């Protein structure tokens, strides 16, 4: 299910974690609870999109993020009274960035505390180590007031025991008291509804975390190539034209596994078959997919280090032009902009065609949420304050609160360049308080680094996302998946990589799938199917 195969990028980590239950979830409980018929309609928070800031390119209609070509000149004030109650707010979450300077040396943190009206303390853990940290903290019963739920077994039972049931605060119209939480997309809430109870606030993602094929549009243009592919043969042609071994040029920075699967209509992880679920591992086109990938590899179109390097190497290869094609999520766009050496570099997106040329293919839609944060039972008395704090953190793009949260104070943490905020080095080091993994606004496409790119990304998303295939059980919970999923996925990725590189025959896939099924895959399918049934 990961697309960079050998590498573990943060996004694949999170996507994986979401699938294995970092997010946990489902509309039904496990462990013998039969669920209240899965009637989530009455429980689900009402969705009330925020209309206070008008996006330059609205995305709601296409189920994609809003895009802004520049930061609104006079940001509106979204929150008038500080959410805090004066008592400390303690948060446990993870981070993907270097840790910030301590409070005494951190102007941003001090200002945050005064704007929140409570001293905020954060317990940060590097995201890759979060599951272990979370497991020990749960065992030691030392959960913070607000905690991001980690990948531990028995999430539903853990939540029943340790987390506040937020249903009475957030279900239906009750959520309107927290207007910026009501602005989170409906599907994102799936991850935190268990047995008809809401146990947390999701960190939304969705379309922005869909994987697509990026191109260096400037290189394609220079070589007179179309940034468009009509069928598999077209794709081979494109790769061939972009490969020049003597000059150390390889079309693909890494194996385009998902892109090829998209060409063959392989479903996004699972597909429904009546009341049962079928894994995409068992899809009949998998062997054809491998034939294509093996040919790409043996023809030398994939960078030789594709299976050994780290994720960031992709960006270096794409940035210095040694590979003009790379598969990554929509959210990675700015990071590719930042690693481009050539100022003329332009980024494009190629949509997958159907392999036989019978029309456009479908990409896989990213999971609606990457996780959720819950409130500790010990802090039940302060639940309204804590929700108000999360509401504060979810203030959307274009507001003063968002500007402060992401960019700190003007002149100190960011400078305004052409009307857009740009973080200074001080800002970069001080704002890293893990706020975006406590509660966050829906994603916004905003690319001030390069004029025109926000439109480009918005248009690419508009073209690809409305038809994208969703994972029918995204955000749902399967106990076996939490316990065995990571190992099973690692094994399948290993086989995938071996087959592509010709170390194993294509027929090895069938055996691997059999092993996957008996090793837990069938059980996972069964549990997800049950979760899906009771969510309806």
């Amino acid at each position: 299910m990961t697309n960079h195969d050998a590498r573990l990028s943060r996004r694949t980590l999170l996507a994986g974690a979401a699938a294995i239950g970092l997010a946990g979830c489902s509309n039904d409980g496990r462990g013998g609870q039969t669920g209240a018929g899965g009637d989530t309609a009455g429980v689900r928070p009402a969705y009330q999109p925020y209309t206070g800031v008008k996006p330059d390119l609205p995305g709601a209609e296409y189920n994609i993020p809003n895009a802004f070509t520049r930061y609104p000149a006079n940001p509106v004030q979204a929150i008038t009274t500080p959410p805090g109650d004066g008592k400390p707010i303690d948060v446990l979450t993870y981070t993907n960035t270097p840790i910030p300077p301590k409070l005494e040396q951190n102007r941003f943190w001090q200002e945050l505390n005064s704007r929140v009206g409570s001293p905020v303390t954060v317990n940060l853990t590097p995201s890759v180590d979060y599951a272990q940290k979370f497991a020990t903290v749960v065992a030691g019963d030392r959960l913070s007031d607000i905690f991001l739920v980690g990948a531990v077994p028995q999430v539903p039972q853990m939540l029943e025991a340790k987390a506040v049931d937020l249903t009475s605060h957030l279900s239906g119209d009750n959520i309107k008291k927290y207007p910026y939480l009501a602005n989170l997309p409906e599907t994102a809430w799936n991850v935190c509804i268990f047995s008809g109870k809401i146990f947390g606030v999701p960190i939304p993602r969705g379309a922005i975390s869909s994987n697509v094929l990026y191109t260096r549009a400037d290189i394609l243009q220079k070589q007179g190539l179309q940034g468009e592919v009509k069928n598999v043969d077209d794709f081979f042609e494109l790769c061939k034209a972009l490969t020049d071994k003597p000059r150390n040029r390889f079309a693909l920075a890494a194996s385009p596994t998902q892109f090829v699967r998209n060409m063959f209509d392989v479903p996004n992880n699972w597909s429904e078959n009546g009341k049962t679920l079928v894994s995409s591992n068992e899809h009949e086109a998998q062997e054809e997919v491998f034939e294509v990938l093996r040919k790409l590899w043996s023809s030398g179109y994939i960078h030789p280090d594709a299976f050994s390097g780290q994720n960031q190497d992709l960006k270096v290869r794409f940035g210095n032009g040694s590979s003009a094609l790379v598969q990554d999520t929509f959210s990675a766009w700015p990071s590719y902009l930042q690693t481009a050496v050539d100022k003329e570099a332009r980024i494009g997106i190629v949509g997958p065609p159907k392999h036989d040329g019978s029309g456009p293919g479908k990409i896989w839609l990213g999971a609606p949420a990457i996780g959720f944060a819950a409130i500790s039972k010990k802090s039940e008395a302060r639940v309204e304050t804590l929700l108000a704090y999360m509401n504060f953190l979810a203030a959307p793009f274009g507001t003063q609160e968002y500007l402060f949260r992401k960019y700190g104070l003007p002149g100190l943490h960011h400078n305004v360049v052409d009307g857009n905020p740009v973080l200074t080095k001080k800002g970069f080091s001080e704002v890293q308080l893990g706020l975006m993994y406590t509660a966050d606004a829906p994603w916004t496409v905003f690319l001030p680094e390069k004029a025109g790119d926000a439109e480009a990304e918005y248009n690419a998303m508009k073209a690809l996302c409305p038809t994208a295939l969703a994972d029918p059980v995204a955000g749902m919970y399967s106990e076996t998946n939490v316990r065995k999923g990571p190992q099973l996925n690692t094994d399948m990725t290993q086989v995938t990589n071996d087959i592509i590189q010709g170390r194993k025959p294509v027929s090895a896939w069938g055996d691997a799938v059999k092993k996957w099924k008996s090793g837990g895959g069938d059980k996972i399918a069964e549990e997800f199917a049950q979760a899906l049934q009771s969510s309806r």
Partner: protein
Amino acid sequence: MKRQQVLAGGMPMPGLAERIVKAIFLTLICAVVVVPFIGVVSTSLASPEEVIRAGGFVLFPTHGIDLSAYKSILSGGTVTQALLVSGFITAVGTAIALVLTCMLGWALSRRGSVGNKPLLLLVLISLLFNPGLIPSYLVIQQFGLLDSLWAVILPTSVSAFNVIVVRAYFVGLPDAVLDSARIDGASEWKMFWYIGLPLSKAVVAVVGLFYGVGYWNSFFGALLYLNDSSKWPLQLVLRTYVVNGVEIGAQDLGATEALPPQTSIQMAILMISVVPILCVYPFIQRHFAKGVLTGAVKG
């Protein structure tokens, strides 16, 4: 008649051809070790453009030296603070660990000391079983050590392996020396302090190095037990810069003033964490073979 040259050990000097072959062979082996290291140093000092053009790894910076990777890590004060914390943990931890290990090793090396065999068995058992993540955490919590540097220092202050090494060395001390000390009226404590330890400098140095490197490199205990990131040791802080190749910043934040490429930052981090150990190593290295071997053979 020309006398054949003889090496210090009495071995005959090999012929010229053989020496050349050996020299080439050894040079190659050295190069295998040294070249990547030069690459690390060079990449950490190369300019961002050069790093990206070279595909991430620079062997020799040709466009001058660029310290931006180091500046970016050392600005903000978190890394310098973490250096102090790591220094404290390593110094205090190694001192405590050496005292405990030597005393335990001495007690276990004396035949006839109280509970000698059962105690030795307990130490050996701890080589076989690992307490596991959550039980360790609960113990630390029960002792009230959470969020304290002692939580990182104390749990690893006695390593069974090192106790065995030290004990073996003590067992090998000549009985005659200790017997004569006893006749002169020395107590067990005096024998340990004035005879045992001074005769065992080599093994103490080696075990000290083991502990020192262990404390310097450890991050996982800190990750679990220290919530306040201003108490984090260097390795854990540096870990947040390189978590599995995550490109920092770009996606989690908006536009930022140009940051150095991730590879330079990683290499600079490598330098920062390796240099202190490299500085200490030469002073202890001369004891190394002697200390470990003596312990091993006479065990």
